[in-house]
C-alpha cells in the first residue's frame, strides 16, 4: 500500500468515524446519567431525514441542521417521558423509537417528495461543503506533513471538526464541572443525588436532551455532509455500532474517540477492499462488517478487561417515601 492510498483510507476513516463519534458521545451522556439508550439509531435516522428534507426545501443547510436536531430532540423527549416520567422499560422504549423513526421517515418522505422514501439530492448551499483550513498552500511543499495536513486534517465539513471538538469538551464537562459530577452521580447513585437536594428527574432530562442534540448533529452529518440527501434506512446500523463503541470505550470520552476511529477504520477498509488477501487466507468482507460487533461481545464478556456500565443504568428512579 502506498502513501497516497493510506492517506485516502485514513481520510475516509475520519469521515466514517464522525457520525459514530457524535452518536457515541450522545449515548455517553445518556447512559452516564443512568438512561440506557438503544434508540440512537432511530434518533440519527429521524435527524438525517428532517435535515435533508428541510435543507432540500429551504436550500439552507443550517436550517436543515436545526430541523434535524429538533426531530432528534423530539424523540429524546419521548424516550425521557417513557423512561423517566412513566418509569417504563428504557430498552423497550429505545426499540420503539428505532421503529418509529424507520417508519415515519419513509412515510413522510413519500408524502413530501414522492420519490420512493428519499429526499431530492442536495446541491450547493443545501450541503455542508468541505472547508479548507488556512495554511494548506503554505505547507504543501513540506514532504509528509504537507499531504497529511491537506488530505487528512483539512478538507472536511465543519461537522467533522465539531465532532472531534466534542471529545475534549465532553471530557471537561463530565470530569471538571459540577454539572458533570452530578450527571455521573445520577447514573451511579441517584438516591445520593436526591439526598443532596438535586433533581434526579431534571438532571436525567438534561442528559437525554444533550443526547438528542448530538444524535441530531450525527444524523444531519450523514444526510447533508457525508451524503447528499436522505435514503431509506441510511443509518444502516451506525447507531448500534456507536453503542458498541460506547461499551468498547467503557463509557469514557477519550476512549470513545479511539473506539470510533477503530470502527471507522474497519468501515473504511471494508468499503475500499472487498476481501482482504493476507496470503495464507482471505479475510471476507462480511467478517470486517461483523468485527465491531464481535469485538464488543468479547469486551462485554470481560475476557479483555471488563466493561461495567453505570450502576443505576436502566433503572427508573423512585423516590423513597
Amino acid at each position, binding site marked *: 500500500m502506498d502513501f497516497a492510498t493510506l492517506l485516502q483510507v485514513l481520510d475516509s476513516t475520519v469521515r466514517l468515524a464522525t457520525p459514530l463519534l457524535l452518536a457515541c458521545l450522545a449515548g455517553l451522556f445518556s447512559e452516564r446519567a443512568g438512561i440506557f439508550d*438503544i434508540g440512537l439509531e432511530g434518533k440519527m435516522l429521524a435527524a438525517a431525514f428532517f435535515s435533508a428534507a428541510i435543507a432540500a426545501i429551504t436550500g439552507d443547510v443550517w436550517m436543515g441542521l436545526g430541523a434535524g436536531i429538533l426531530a432528534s430532540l423530539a424523540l429524546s423527549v*419521548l424516550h425521557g*417521558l*417513557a*423512561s423517566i416520567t*412513566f*418509569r*417504563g*422499560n*428504557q*430498552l*423497550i*422504549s429505545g*426499540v*420503539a*423509537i*428505532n*421503529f*418509529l423513526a*424507520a*417508519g*415515519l421517515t*419513509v*412515510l*413522510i418522505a*413519500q*408524502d413530501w417528495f*414522492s420519490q420512493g*422514501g428519499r429526499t431530492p439530492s442536495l446541491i450547493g448551499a443545501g450541503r455542508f461543503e468541505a472547508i479548507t483550513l488556512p495554511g494548506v498552500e503554505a505547507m504543501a511543499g513540506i514532504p509528509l506533513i504537507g499531504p497529511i495536513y491537506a488530505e487528512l486534517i483539512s478538507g472536511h465539513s465543519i461537522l467533522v471538526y465539531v465532532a472531534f471538538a466534542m471529545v475534549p469538551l465532553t471530557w471537561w464537562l463530565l470530569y471538571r464541572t459540577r454539572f458533570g459530577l452530578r450527571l455521573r452521580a445520577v447514573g451511579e447513585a441517584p438516591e445520593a443525588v436526591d439526598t443532596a437536594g438535586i433533581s434526579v428527574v431534571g438532571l436525567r432530562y438534561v442528559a437525554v436532551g444533550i443526547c438528542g442534540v448530538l444524535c441530531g448533529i450525527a444524523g444531519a452529518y450523514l444526510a447533508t455532509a457525508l451524503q447528499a440527501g436522505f435514503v431509506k434506512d441510511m443509518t444502516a*446500523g451506525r447507531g*448500534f455500532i456507536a*453503542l*458498541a463503541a460506547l*461499551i468498547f470505550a467503557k463509557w469514557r470520552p477519550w476512549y470513545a474517540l479511539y473506539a470510533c476511529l477503530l470502527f471507522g477504520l474497519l468501515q473504511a477498509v471494508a468499503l475500499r477492499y472487498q476481501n482482504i488477501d493476507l496470503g495464507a487466507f482471505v479475510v*471476507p468482507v*462480511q*467478517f470486517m*462488517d*461483523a468485527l465491531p*460487533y*464481535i469485538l*464488543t*461481545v468479547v469486551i*462485554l*464478556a*470481560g475476557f479483555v478487561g471488563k466493561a461495567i*456500565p453505570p450502576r443505576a443504568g436502566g433503572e427508573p428512579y423512585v423516590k423513597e417515601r
Partner: protein
Amino acid sequence: MDKMPGWADAVLVPLITLILAAILSALVIIGIGEDPVAAFKLMVDGALMRSSGWGYTLYYATNFIFTGLAVAVAFHARLFNIGGEGQAMIGGLGVALACLYIPWPNWYVALVGATVSAAIFGALWALIPAYLQAKRGSHIVITTIMFNFIAAALLNYVLVNILRPQGAMDPATARFPEATKLPTFQDMFSTAETAMFRGAPANVTFFLAIAMCLVVWLLIWRTKLGYEIRAFGQSESAAKYAGISPVKITVVAMLISGGLAGMMALNTTMGEAERLVMNATEGAGFIGIAVALMGRSHPLGVLLAALLFGFLYQGGAELALWTNIPRELIVVIQALVILFTGALDNMVRMPLEKLFLASRRKA
C-alpha cells in the same frame, strides 16, 4: 391487595393501548393526506374478506407466533431477547442444511427433521449471549443485538461463498428437493370445485405454530421448569433461595427462546421460498417483541396479537398496492404498539389503577 382486577390487567390495558395506537395511526394517515376509514376498509378487504387474503394473513401470523412466543418465554425469566431476528436467520440456515443435505422420503418426515434442525440452530445462536449473561453478567440485550448483526454477516458469507449454486447471481441456496415441499393451505383445503387460499403462502407450519402455543403454555404453567422460570423472573433472589440455579434458568430459557425463534424459519424458508434467501426473516424477529408485549407473554395473547399483526402486515401490503401509503405505515403502528404496551405501559396503567381504587373505595 391487587390494585386492579385480573381481567382489567389482561384485557383492558391491551385494549386501551391498542385504541391509542389506532388513533395515532389514524392521525398519521390523515397527516399524509389519506382517509383512515377508507384505508382501514381496504385493509380489511384485502386481508380478511377473501380466502387468499386470509392465506397471507395467517402466513405472516405464523411467523409472529413463533417469534412472539420466543420473546414471551424469555420475558417470563425477565430476559429481554432482542435477538429473535438473528436466531431466526440462523434457524433458516438449519432448515436449509437439513433440507438440502438429507434425502428425506416425504414432507412430514422432512418437517420433523427440519424443525429439530431449525430449533437447534436457533437455540445455539442464543446460547452464547445466554451464557455470557448468566456467567459473566454481560447485558443480554446488548449481546443479542450484536448477535443479530453477526448473524446477518455470517449468513451473508455462507450464502455468497458456500451455499450459492455455481453460476447463480443472487445470494441464496439452491431450491430444496421436491420431497421437502410442505403442503400449503391451497393443497389442504381446496376441493375439486372451489380453490381455497389460491396462491397464498400459508402452509402446514401454521398448525405447528398453534401446537407450540400449547406446548409453551404447558411448559410455563404446568411443569417444574416453567415454575422455576417464572419464579426466577419474579424474583431472582427468592429463586436462588429456593435452590433454583440462575445460570441454568437463564441458559435454558434462552435456549427455548432461541429455538422458537429459529423455528420461524420453517415457515418462510421451507414453507414459502423453498430455498434460503438473504432476507428471509423480514423483521419478524422484532415484531415478536410487539407481539409478546401486547399478548402479555401469554400464549393465547401471543396468538391473538400475532393474528392482529398478520392482518396489519397483509393489510399494509394491500394499502401499498392501491394507495399512496407505503408499507412503512405498519412499522409505525408496530412502533406505537411497542411504545404503548411496553414503554409507556404505566401511562395507561396509572390512571386505570386510580380509577379502580376510587371505585372500590366507594363500594
